[in-house]
């Protein structure tokens, strides 16, 4: 065996080892050559169809109308927003009757037949 063959043998040995170790190393660290693919399902429930109720015909104008602005006092930030809306409505529509209600259950106090429109602070 001459020196050339020795070098050739060593280089082949290192090349094979590099390949084997690279493959082994990547497997040892959990690296997959092809990532597993999944087809997955939706976990959410669904809403059954129902008979929809349309919203009411809108007003031509708020001028001269009775508009109730209501807010649940438990929501302080909402209350401030609704106060600002109420004040602006009063400014814009001086001939309107802008009523203010702070109550969780307005149905107890409101007479529907006397209201033209309702603005509700929705408590978030």
């Amino acid at each position, binding site marked *: 065996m001459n020196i050339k063959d020795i070098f050739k043998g060593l280089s082949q040995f290192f090349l094979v080892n590099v390949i084997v170790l690279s493959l082994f190393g990547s497997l040892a660290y959990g690296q997959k050559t092809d990532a597993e693919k999944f*087809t997955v*399902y939706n976990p959410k429930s669904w809403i059954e169809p129902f008979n929809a109720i349309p919203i*009411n015909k*809108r007003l031509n104008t708020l001028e001269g109308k009775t508009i109730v602005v209501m807010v649940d006092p438990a929501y302080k930030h909402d209350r401030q927003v609704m106060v*600002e809306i109420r004040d*602006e409505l009063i400014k814009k529509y001086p001939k309107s009757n802008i009523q203010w209600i702070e109550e969780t259950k307005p149905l107890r106090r409101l007479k*529907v037949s006397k*209201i033209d429109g309702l603005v*509700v602070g929705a408590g978030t």
Partner: protein
Amino acid sequence: MEHQTGTVCKFEKLGVPSVAVYAKNHVKDQHKSLCIMNFVPEARAVFLAEGKTGKDVVEDVVAALTRPRSKEEIFAGLYEPPKEPRIALENATYDEVQTFYEGDSKRFETIDPRSDMTDGLPVVPPTEEKILEFLKHTIHDRHKIVGRMPPLGNTFDVEKVAINGIMAGCKPEYFPILLAMAEGLCHQANNQGYHTTTAFGWMGVVSGPIAKKVGMSYQRNILNPGNPANASIGRAMNLMKLNLGGWVRGVRMIANAGNPANYTCTIAEDVEGLKWPSLAEEHGLAKGENGITIFHGMKYMDLMYSYFKNPSVYPGDWGKLRPELQNNPEQWIVDGFKACSHPAEFGVLLDKKTANQYYEEGISKEDLRLKLWNMAAVTNEWGVRNIPWYHHGIGGLMARAAGYEDWKEAPKDAIFHLPPDPKDISFIVTSNYTYLFKLTHICTVSIDKWGTGPKADAFSKAHLAAQSLDADDKGKKIVINALADSQLVLAEPDKNFGQNERMLSDLGKSRAIIKFDLSQIPVNAEIKSVGLQLGAHLVPKYGWYAGNITIGVFRLKNDWSENEVSWNFRHKGKTWDNPGGDFESKPSAIYEITPPTFGEVAAGAWICEFRDKQMKADVSDWIQNPSQNSGWLLKVVKKEKKTQIADFDAKEINDRADMFRPRLIINYTLSK
């Protein structure tokens, strides 16, 4: 938010143009879902962007009240809500799956990040292969409807339960437990136990041999992490509440700080060798039957009570106890009752050794319950001084249980009990210790009926039998809405309630009457079955949960008109022969409402169905002799102590789907 959005929908139904104003802009989806829940899907709203004021949106508010309606907004008919695709994601990597279920958690400007479909932790990808593995553990079809889960009341089937269970990391053999758990979660009436800022959580308790079979923990460390079954089943409960019920963090999950039990809290009872009946047996399941009990509350304290129940075992520690506890160790539990801020209902976790010791001493669960309840007697004055929520409900509950209208009406020395009723104490035999929980019992459901054994077979057959009304080969099915309904009220004997949305609202003092136009059924029809379906609400006398109530259906003998009938009069100027209605003494049907039962629960109400041979005979007779069709009268014939009020939706109810309005389902064939 739910109440206010509901108010907007309510006023739209009452004819008033309305608009909701949301001071935050992250709730557009929730607004839509709430409007759908209220059957006004296009109710208008204005949303404030971050940093905007009321002044900035006033033009939007004006426009919402004045802008002409769109085509969608005037639509009145069958609304089919958008349905998400069954397959969520195809051919995706593990990371893509996680990203999908998490969603864009930072999409909201005003709340902290939250995951869309998970509890914030990674989930196991729910693939078809895994679903099929789960389905091997039940005989029920993957598309069988399990129920409707609050708070949204949406519908789900067997497959959806499997998907959530897989995501939570459950093994296939847990599947019957998950299905029973899902059914149990449907028993919670809308909003009860969901919408609160207090720190409540949920607990599932599995009773029966299945717990050991699937490897659940029921001895030491039951509330600590580490057991795969306890951890993943409990996690599945919370994923189901999120994905099936819509209990969304920051929207419907509104606690100030919350409760760690809402990540996972399911335990098992230690039933092998237990001499007392298990929790499931106590709630009506057969001896040895597997069951799951759902509780909510989950505020707890550990008591070393059972440690000291037998002092000879721990002589070194015995002397450390307060002397009064040495003589009466149950006092420790009662002290726990007294330390609770809202002492309405309790769960006591006892170890099996202590439970069996009671049994050997001749003390049953009922005896111990009564003993603790008696020991927990306090005066009205004590309650005022010591119970933080006394003025906010709890005083009223305790007073009403003791026979007073309210605590304010009772003398200072009136005796109340901290859990108002002995039944408000549940015993859970597990662990090696004693814990006291603030726990409210929701329901107990059979696990076996969701598995593969004979119980599941019987359940499946009963379900199919109920559906047989739809079978074409068995005859023609017809659904008839009520022609007229009203209630007769003793306290207002001359008042007509024909346009009321509810009926039968006060037990013993009110009666509901209802009739149907049967003219569309041919006279040669042979009636095969008759079912009277009513949307029911039971309001408890105290506490949050109603008991059973038995309603009788009686055939009316004289005609009446909807807008004139009252307790005294059946027509204007024409009285009943007997005030309160002329009806047959023998009922045509008797129905015990157990709120609620499988498949009947919906948001805030459930449907009960009255059936009996005599009802079939009534209908047959009325088809032949229409002039004798005066309908039926419904009245309460028996009730449990807790049930105070039973309401049925009348045909005038305007915030519920048709299925809640009174209807008669008749199956018939035509004779040759």
